């Protein structure tokens, strides 16, 4: 055995240390400059025991992971105050001692809305609540996002930050107050610049990285009315002593429920401060928290107080029926696949109940409220073709349970005659050599004037750009491939118009398989 000189040993050790590296830059889309202080993490795919590596971007936005073993890495990055335009995690393949340079991760800086809230006489309204709702679309309807909120300080100033680019409706109000047992005083909101109704709001456009200042809101006294009534408890057969109550305005951009509050000991309630509009009053017994078993009544406030808006809470409503199969594949056993029927509130999308399909294909869902539900069936390859009650097809896949009753004999026609649509997403024109699409969403948008049962079909593309959508019902669609993240809101008719050149008409007919290539649509700036 020969002894190596110390220097040679060191050299040998150095040669054995892995020298792979991943390097790049974190860049602001808006300014083009580097972003300092972003946190990055890298881990090798599939091997959970490998430690996760961390680094931070330098003042010019540069980052480096070094001393890496060869392997398949996933890299992701985060910086508070910014939203990534890059789709994370980014896969990076490293051969032994390879150095991968030039990764560029792009981030948008969030927007800001600032301003002041004053009373009619110009005094700051300290503590006023300010909300900004981003205008979005869902199932073809205009809808508000969950609001970004803030409150006015001792100078009446507010600052709403962390806003993605978009169009916003800005509203201010005083906080709600519980003024006595069973009594809630709401404060009517003022929509920028000074409207009493969302339809009078002037939307505020915020671009990435933009600070929109001087959005001044003036709170004025408004004519408002009260709703009073009593809540009974179905189980106790008397007043509901511990019911929780909510009031939502249905014709408002903000259809999120109001805060919960309790009825008075005798079951009575009174809600003040309601401007003319359509409202839903909902009550729930304390015995059913989280079960979404709610009784509600919808009322219209015009120019006077409404009295006697009475409710009975704690009614157990059920929907039962059976599933009929149309051209099922051989050996289909839905119960083995534990097929489920899901009842989602049509307004909020909250899942209220899930019913399991029994071996004889019957089902029963309980604990439902008297609101319309959209029903979905999760069964491999099967699509709901129709809902029937008493032999009549329902006009839409929606079921409304009566206030004091249940529904029996709901027939769900489940068809297995859907078609497979597959294809690949093509990189945008002018993209560099070797560029391929790693993240996209493929959407089939049903053409107008078809059955209400035809819904938007969505699937994410594979990292290779290929996609496959199974069980698409026959009908006419326009197919789009949309970028991820910052996916354009295809539910917005204006967006569909702007992306018309990227849409491909698609006629789905029974018994045909369809293959198509779709051009990747661009990211849209604010409309």
């Amino acid at each position: 055995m020969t002894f190596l000189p110390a220097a040679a040993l060191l050299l040998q050790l150095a040669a054995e240390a892995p020298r792979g590296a991943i390097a790049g830059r974190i860049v602001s889309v808006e300014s083009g400059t580097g972003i300092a202080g972003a946190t990055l993490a890298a881990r090798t795919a599939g091997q959970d025991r490998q430690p996760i590596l961390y680094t931070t971007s330098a003042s010019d936005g540069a980052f480096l992971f070094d001393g890496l073993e060869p392997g398949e890495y996933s890299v992701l990055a985060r910086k508070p105050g910014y939203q990534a335009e890059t789709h994370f995690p980014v896969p990076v393949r490293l051969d032994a001692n390879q150095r991968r340079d030039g990764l560029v991760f792009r981030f948008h800086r969030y927007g800001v809305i600032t301003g002041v809230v004053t009373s009619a006489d110009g005094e700051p309204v300290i503590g006023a609540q300010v909300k900004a709702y981003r205008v979005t679309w869902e199932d073809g309807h205009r809808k508000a996002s969950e609001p970004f909120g803030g409150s006015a300080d001792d100078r009446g100033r507010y600052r709403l930050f962390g806003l993605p680019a978009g169009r916003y409706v800005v509203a201010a109000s005083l906080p709600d107050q519980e003024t006595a047992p069973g009594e809630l005083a709401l404060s009517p909101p003022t929509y920028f610049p000074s409207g009493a109704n969302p339809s009078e709001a002037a939307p505020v456009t915020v671009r990435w990285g933009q600070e929109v200042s001087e959005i001044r809101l003036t709170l004025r006294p408004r004519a408002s009315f009260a709703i009073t009534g009593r809540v009974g408890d179905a189980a106790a057969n008397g007043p509901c002593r511990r019911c929780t109550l909510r009031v939502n305005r249905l014709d408002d951009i903000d259809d999120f429920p109001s805060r919960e509050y309790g009825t008075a000991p005798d079951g009575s309630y009174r809600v003040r401060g309601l401007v003319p509009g359509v409202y839903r009053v909902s009550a729930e017994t304390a015995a059913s928290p989280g079960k979404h078993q709610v009784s509600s009544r919808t009322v219209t406030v015009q120019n006077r107080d409404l009295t006697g808006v009475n409710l009975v809470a704690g009614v157990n409503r059920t929907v039962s029926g059976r599933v009929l199969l149309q051209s099922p594949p051989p050996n289909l056993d839905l119960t083995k696949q534990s097929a489920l029927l899901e009842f989602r509130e049509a307004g909020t999308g909250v899942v209220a109940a899930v019913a399991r399909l029994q071996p004889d294909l019957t089902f029963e869902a309980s604990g439902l409220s008297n609101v319309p539900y959209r029903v979905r069936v999760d069964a491999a390859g099967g699509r709901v073709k129709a809902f029937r009650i008493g032999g009549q097809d329902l006009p839409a896949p929606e079921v409304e349970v009566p206030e004091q009753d249940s529904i029996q004999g709901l027939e769900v026609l489940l068809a297995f005659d859907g078609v497979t649509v597959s294809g690949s997403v093509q990189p945008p024109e002018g993209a560099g050599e070797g560029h391929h699409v790693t993240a996209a969403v493929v959407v089939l948008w049903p053409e107008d004037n078809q059955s209400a049962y035809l819904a938007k079909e969505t699937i994410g593309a594979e990292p290779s750009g290929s996609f496959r959508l199974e069980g698409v019902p026959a009908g006419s669609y326009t197919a789009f491939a949309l970028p991820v993240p910052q996916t354009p809101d295809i539910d917005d008719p204006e967006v569909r118009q702007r992306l018309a050149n990227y849409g491909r008409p698609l006629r789905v007919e029974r018994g045909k398989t369809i293959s198509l290539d779709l051009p990747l649509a661009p990211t849209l700036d604010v409309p």
Partner: protein
Amino acid sequence: MRCVAAGLLLAAAAYGASVSGTVYLQESDTVRPLAGVRITVHQAEGGTVLGSTTTDAQGRYQIESLPRTRVQVSAARPGFFAHARRGGEPAVVVDLDAAADFAGADFEAQPGGVITGHITDAHGDPVQEVQIHLYRVTDFGGRHRQAEQTMGSDDRGQYRAFGLEPGRYLLEVATQPSDWLRDRRSPVYYPGTSDAARATEIEVRAGVEVTGIDITLRPEPVFQVSGRIVDVQMGPLQHLILRLTSTEQVSYSFAGQDGTFTFPRLPRGSYILTATGPQGIITSEPLELSADVKNLTVRPTEPGQITGRVAFSGPGAKPAEIRLRARAAWQNPLETVARAPDYQFRFADIWAGPLVVEIASPSDAYLSQVKLGSKEVPARLDVPPGGITGLELTVGFGVARVTGSIKARRGGPLPQARVALARPGTNPVEFRTAIADQNGRFVLSDVRPGEYLLGAWASVAVEQLYGPEIWGHDAVKRLTVEPRAQVELDLTAIP
């Protein structure tokens, strides 16, 4: 069930009482009425809101249709702080059974002080959405602090606290738990220390803005824990949730197909590692973290038990059985029974980690002391692997009610005075307090039997009660409260 009882009480009370008064703004040397102040009437015990309104342009308010019961009236307007004109307490207590229409629940408001500043990181970049706590400081019974306001920094790292009562404040940037892509930070006090005792106090005066209260945050070292969970034959266990719990955060990891797991970025500290499968916990063990831990092998273990006995404080008939409950994280509460004559008990299925012992029944029993060996320990136990033997729980019964009248030194009832009940020998003093109504009457309910000091003060800041000195006064009474007693006694207010 307290709120139900309060509701029933209210349902039984006669209505038709009213409270009225005026709110004044005191700014430098001028006093004028203040409009737009929200007045709220709460039930004196239980806290249910009975009514509320806002002062008019003359600063006046009136609330009608109130139940004829003891109520507490308070005044608030954002940006201001208010206190009772008489007595200076934050609220006015009125017995509406004794006076159905009470006029003169007046308040005085002052514009609050303001503190502003910036939170930045080591690069000087703003840090947004950190939680900032403000505490008001007093020096009675040692430096004592009281949470006053909590707010967040905005996208410029800026924060603004307003409506502050004059006084001395400490500012703390709260702990931020770590996660996959975020460093953990310990609390930092202004101007930049983790030690509250070395924090600089910020002096706040009415209507004055203190600016430049800036803090720079620095990251702390974090560590990774990785390993594999295996069954007794060393085969991988799948679909398990692993948790690392410390006193301030919980981190999760899901075991992969091969049983491997990783927890990234955890701060130094003491943890409990718990693995949970579909049938519940399969192991729970302590872990000290001060460096990266790699290749940790975790195996299922057997749960331990807690054994001990129940003792009783004070004389009186003992119940035939005491039902005990143990609450631990990630587990359904466990119950067991200690029966006469020896009142021994045993909880099975006990895992290492924090656990709280409490009395499930009878309903008027309370836990007065927990002892291990001969040492008193908190009711929140840190259970080691294997469990605990010889736990002694002392149980008391029969809460009492202490009522009375407060007289001024020169005779006659003293309205809106403060009464307080203290445990002797504590420092800072442990006390309960209430405000007397318009006739000088006070009520302290749900008082546990035992030895107490009872005093009344014409004008005192609540903070002062933490100091033992104030309890040395001749007019402070010594009091033994027996189980289920209704104690009625008169006190002379200390000026």
